[in-house]
């Protein structure tokens, strides 16, 4: 099931009704009636009170856990097997680490090995086999290697990282191992963020799972509004741009100017698509009483690569920062080459995380290169110049056009040959029709950026002023109705999946 399926609306209606319905058990008169019932069974008032106090939360968690499994296993129930292998291994590994601190290193190793093996097998095996076969083929050997003919389990990269973070935090002593499997399983499988993030840390999400949640209308409405805004970005912006971008990338020999325009449009599409997912996830979670982390913070306003990665897919970049980059940096004496190595390895991992293909590896290394560049060059720039507005604008132009553009190309084109074909052609030669084609895509991209930029402006300048006014509510509901109308008009049945599902 996905967020932009009609079935999801029905699913959410049932989930929300049951979920908040369970909370009624904690209110009078239900509370006193069950108390009387408890006495009938010989329970002491205090014991029953204690148990009953936590009953709504427990029922909510069980219900959410079942709902999450339904959501994830809706089409391919076998995906759940992998999810629970990963979750269960880490559940027991964490408990064993806590119970046997003397063996915690190899216990962590077992956990890491099982997670990475599963991830490697399902996500990277075919890539490995293809390249290995090609290498052997060049030597004249044609082995008949086993190739997987299964779909890549959705969200495997997300939940594997999430469970790994739990084990590592327990290993580091930053988190206590959980004993309640249902709570833990809900943390791993929490449906709003399971398949495309944000990659929530156990330290942030588990406590929310374990704490009571109370219905708050304002919070609920804000969650609804956020989810609706996510739906708008996906349906109206991303899915409207997608056919135009796809058309250019399906052209056999697109002129450079067309590639440039398509790269720009794809950037807008990708942001709208991925941010949409995060918004819906955060909105839905908020309606359920959870808070998920922000994943995007106006990434295209970044002036440099380090800033970009602080604003783009924040949950991933902070994850690799904490679990890959920092440990690499701290394993020996600080030196400039260690920093470079740590950055490059980290971004190699980031590239590989995105997919089993050379373009993603190159994407990682390319970003690593710019990270190194900015890391070492930025301190050399005088502070006064760094704070100078025109200079900042030039830095933004440079970063957006020179650094980011190829990133989009590497992200979208899975064949390096195609990437080379795009770059290795006359940059300033195009027929009039090709310029028109580029103009079409640019026009659509600009159209796509309008609502996004408008939202930034409203967020900065309008919302703070009207948020506390009583007239905020009608403005909000009217805006929502316009969003619903727009989603209805722009919705296509053949709409694309969220781009980040493939990871």
């Amino acid at each position, binding site marked *: 099931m*996905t967020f932009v*399926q009609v079935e999801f609306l029905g699913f959410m209606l049932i989930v929300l009704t049951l979920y908040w319905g369970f909370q009624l058990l904690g209110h009078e008169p239900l509370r006193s009636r069950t108390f009387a019932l408890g006495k009938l069974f010989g329970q002491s008032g205090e014991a029953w009170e204690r148990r009953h106090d936590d009953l709504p939360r427990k029922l909510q968690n069980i219900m959410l856990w079942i709902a999450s499994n339904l959501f994830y296993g809706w089409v391919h129930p076998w*995906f759940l097997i992998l999810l629970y292998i990963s979750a269960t291994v880490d559940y027991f590994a964490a408990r064993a680490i806590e119970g046997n601190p003397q063996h915690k290193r190899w216990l962590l190793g077992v956990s890491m090995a099982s997670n990475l093996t599963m991830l490697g097998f399902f996500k990277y095996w075919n890539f490995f086999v293809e390249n290995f076969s090609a290498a052997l083929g060049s030597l004249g050997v044609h082995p008949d290697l086993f190739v997987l003919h299964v779909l890549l389990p959705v969200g495997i990269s997300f939940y594997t990282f999430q469970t790994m973070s739990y084990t590592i935090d327990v290993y580091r002593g930053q988190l206590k191992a959980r004993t309640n499997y249902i709570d833990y399983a809900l943390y791993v499988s929490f449906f709003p963020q399971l398949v495309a993030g944000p990659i929530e840390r156990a330290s942030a999400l588990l406590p929310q799972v374990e704490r009571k949640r109370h219905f708050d209308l304002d919070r609920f409405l804000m969650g609804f509004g956020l989810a609706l805004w996510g739906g708008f970005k996906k349906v109206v912006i991303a899915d409207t741009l997608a056919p135009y971008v796809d058309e250019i990338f399906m052209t056999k020999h697109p002129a450079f100017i067309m590639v440039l325009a398509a790269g720009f449009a794809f950037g807008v599409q990708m942001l709208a698509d991925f941010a949409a997912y995060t918004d819906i996830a955060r909105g839905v979670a908020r309606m359920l009483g959870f808070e998920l982390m922000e994943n995007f913070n106006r990434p295209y306003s970044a002036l440099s690569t380090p800033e970009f990665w602080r604003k783009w897919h924040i949950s991933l970049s902070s994850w690799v920062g904490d679990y890959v980059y920092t440990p690499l940096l701290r394993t020996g004496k600080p030196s400039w080459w260690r920093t470079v190595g740590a950055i490059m390895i980290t971004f190699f991992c980031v590239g590989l995380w995105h997919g089993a293909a050379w373009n993603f590896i190159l994407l990682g290394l390319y970003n690593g290169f710019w990270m190194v560049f900015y890391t070492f060059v930025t301190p050399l720039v005088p502070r006064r110049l760094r704070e100078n507005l025109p200079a900042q604008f030039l830095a933004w132009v440079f970063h957006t056009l020179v650094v980011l553009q190829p990133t989009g190309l590497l992200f979208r084109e899975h064949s390096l040959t195609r990437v080379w074909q795009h770059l290795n052609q006359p940059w300033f030669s195009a027929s009039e029709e090709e310029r028109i084609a580029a103009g079409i895509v640019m026009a659509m991209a600009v159209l796509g950026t309008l609502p996004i930029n408008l939202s930034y402006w409203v967020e900065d300048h309008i919302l703070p002023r009207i948020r506390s006014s009583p007239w905020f509510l009608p403005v909000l509901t009217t805006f929502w109705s316009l969003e619903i*109308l727009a989603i209805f008009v722009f919705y296509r049945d053949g709409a694309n999946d969220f781009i980040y599902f493939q990871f």
Partner: protein
Amino acid sequence: MSGAPSARFGALALAIVLPLAVLGAGWSALGRPDGATGKALAMDRELLEAGPPDVVVLGSSLARTNVDLDVLASELGIPRRRIALLTLPNATAAHWYAILENRVFASGYRPRLVIMVGALTTMVTPEVLMDTNGERLVNLLSDDEPVIAAKVFKSRGPYEFALLSLRERAGLLRDRLVEGWRDVALAGLFLGRSERQAGSRLAQRANETVFADDAMEYGLHDAQPTGLYVGEVEQIDLTGLDIARDSLIPDIATLATAHQAHAVFVRTPFPPSNADNDRVPPEVERITSDVMADSGAFYVDLRGLNLGDTYFRDMRHMSVEGAALFTRALARTLVDADLMAGGGGWSAHGVRPSAVTRTLRATEGWVLQSDGGCGWSAPAGALASLTDGALDALGATGALPVRVEAGGVALRWRASAGRDGTCEPGFGVTDGRLWVVTASGGVASATGRAPHVQVGAPTVSWILDGPVTRPGDAPPVWWVYPGSSLDLRFDDPWGHAPEAFTARLLGDLAGPGAASSVRVTVFDQRVPLTQDGGRLWADFKPPAAPVDRPWTVHIEVAAGGPFLLLRNVAIGASPYNSHVIGLPESLSGASARLVGGRQEDTQVVSTFSVAPPAITQPGAPRQAPRGTAVWSLPAFSSFADGPDQKASHVDSCSPLRVFEDGVMLDHAHFTCLDMATLKDGRSCHAGDALFFSASDASNPLTNGRTYSVGLDPDRICERRTQVQNTTPLRDSLWIYPGDRVEVVLPPEQLRAFLRGADLLEVAADPFLAKAGARLHVELRAGGALVHEEDIEAQAGGEREFRRRVLSPALPPRLEDVRVVLSNPDPHAYWLWVMGALSESSPFTETSAPGVASEGERPVEAPTFAPGEADRVAVGPSLFDDPRPVDGVRPPDSVTRAGDPPSNHTGSVTVRGGVAEVRLPSLWVVSNAALAQRGLGWVSPVRVRVGDRDLRPAGSRRALADPACLDACFAHLGESVTFPTARQGVVDDVSVSLSPDVPMVAPHGERVTWAYPGTTTTLTWTVPWTEPGAYIDVHLTELRGDRMAGQGRPTLRMGDVERIFQPGEAWSAARVYLGAPAPGPIVIEVIVPQDSALSMLRDVVLVDGDRRWTLLPDPAAQAVRVEN
């Protein structure tokens, strides 16, 4: 959110009311659909613009990519615009029904053929599979749709119509918004003004060029299915479906039949790697086929076409090459099944005219010849004027309007029948008498016994109830004989304004009698006729609008008048709207194509007066990879073969040749990769470089021989000849500096100019020519110079085209007409791409496209496109492989060990002159069954009567040929039939499977059958291969109900054995060749006794990056032999 209570209350009320108002406004703005929208409008427009179609192709995107309309039109012999392709993405039978009902038939169109292309599952399922499909369907429906309501929406209720309509309207609004923004932005960007229409035109330009189909590679779209959401198409589940009751197949067939159209369901193949895409249980397939047959529809399953993955652009849709192959197979199946019958000129838009048929009482006066001849003769009467010579002069050889039958068998026209002493069956007209030789008369005479007197005279009838077919590709003609008339009645199927109505007629007069005896009336108004030579023209627009229906065109020839041979009758809003008789082209008069056409059109003799001029030698060649050599020839780069070169429109055109010690190496036009492997004197001209290899594979730089560059003395610009032994098309001719080329018009084409020829067309491309370089053109008739001019090259070297009206016209029946082109310029080269001499139409073509200039009449735009349409039209047979292949290596030998199974010997009973042997166990290899699967006419069954082997005939029609009597048989369906003169019981008939390996079928296809219990051994000599090279062998197993053996064929090479892996359409096996230089490759295909009868299909050798076709050998298939 705080504030005073009243403000809070007001805000809350507004928070409810405002959104409701917005949503309500949106709802009413979208409203209900008010008629056809979106795709439906596009379809209407397409139909309207193209005019009434003869063929309608329906389907999903599969139909759009898999059906090549040019190939279909060419193979069916109809203009391209007569085919309407109406497709919707993911369309199923429900959409086809709705389109047929509400778009095609409701608009008054009456196609002959409705072809539905798709997977079997989409034909059978009554579902629409996805919501957007439902919207599209709703869009195509009228108010009253009992069939769709009952079968498609049975469980969903009427509310779905409303919802889907709303979605459709929303989609339209979305498109309007998005495209509106796009167009305004484009106009602003490129034209500096905000005008939507101008922007829309710009966008359309980009769509037609940058995003044209051939510029796209759909496989590059890497949207991956994630598995979280099952795509957009529901899985088709046919379980529990009563196909006869639930599917729309019977409804579609009934609808088509009710409108006099044939419904044809075509099951399209999928790539082998996605063969499961359309897998259904065998019983579903059988039941579907039965339901179609019972409903009167025709089912063509073309999965038997051996299309590998390379024929597909993605997992479902065919590439251009695949589509051409698929369409050709489909078209031939349609033609073979006679589905296009009804006369090539029938427009069939409900305009079938009523015809008058009379039988000549010719039984009086018959005389049986007793000496000096054989057979019967009788006074020919009016027929006496229709001698062979008279018919030849009309260009209507073989189109005598007489049918003679003897013993139920139609006799063949032989001008000298009864007079030449051979006594072969036939009939003819000589010396004012009609001569008829029956089969029995001929046999008696040949054996020297006393003539057998047949009781009763032959039956002779005039053919007036339909067109008379002519040999070859000539369109059929109609006769109106003296004392008869022909009425063509029409119901105005087009709904045109009556004042737009036009009728045109073109006919030839034969025999004595005045043209005034011919009278033509339309709407009871006399049509003025123009007589020019022996030709009669009419161009009529009624002065008063006809009101009454039906409209009638009445053509009458008074007794004692001439025979009228109708070539063309066209009616409609323009002369091209509906050709009742003949083809649109025939209204333009005859035309003789000299250069630039199909092979059969260019029966011209071209002679060159001088040897090719020498060209400046480029110096010593350089070493190239793999022992080849290369010259750099930048001056001649524009001659090169290849897609970037000017000459590429005619494929391999380079006239440069390599000479080894003065002897020309004649394997030119090879790909550079290919000639690097086959180093036997090949050359490759690409860009600046001319690569070549020595004739004996030695290194040209060290073998001591002298190499030079010269020009091809034949001067023929050929089709690419990478596939060995294919016949090149004589598309264009090079005219070198100083050349003089003389082309003589074929006499038979000259005879077609009844009014004389008055239009000369010449097109030529200048190469290396400066502006002003000249090509001199002369037209000579009977030795006299009729026309001459110089064609001057313009700056830029674009093609030069001249169309000249000859005044006076060349008189008819000239014997010696030649066109001479000479190139006096010492530096310029010309490629003569088109030349034609025509008899132009007297009609004023005010509406025809084309550019007119002073002194030239406006005619249709030139249609020459050598190497493009022609390549498709005369392409090799079905099994030709258009994939890029590096070469073809026919086997050195093919032998079979073991006997063909189970001969049938016995007796059969003759009924109505036809003997029939029932062979139910072999129906699956009958020609009809094979043709339905696109496998050609390759039945292996052979028939022997007594000591005579009968010849296989392609169709039942072919058996009617008198020459087939006791000589041919046809294997169609469950029986083998042959016409015989014997009576009663024939008791020495034996039926067997062909012992030939390989076997050439009646239509020229060459196949290698592998029978159960036999081993077929194939041997090739391959000089060397790369490590890892392998051979793939495909065979098709023909399994029927009665041929379901479980044995599996095996492929053996040396000690290696592979069992053929069964597939939906064919079985495959692969063997690796192992070490390099294996010497002769010998593979054996062993078919066990309990296996199915198998046909050995593709055998390919994949050697590194190169691919060689080992089987089929295309040599036997290059020419399709028509029955």
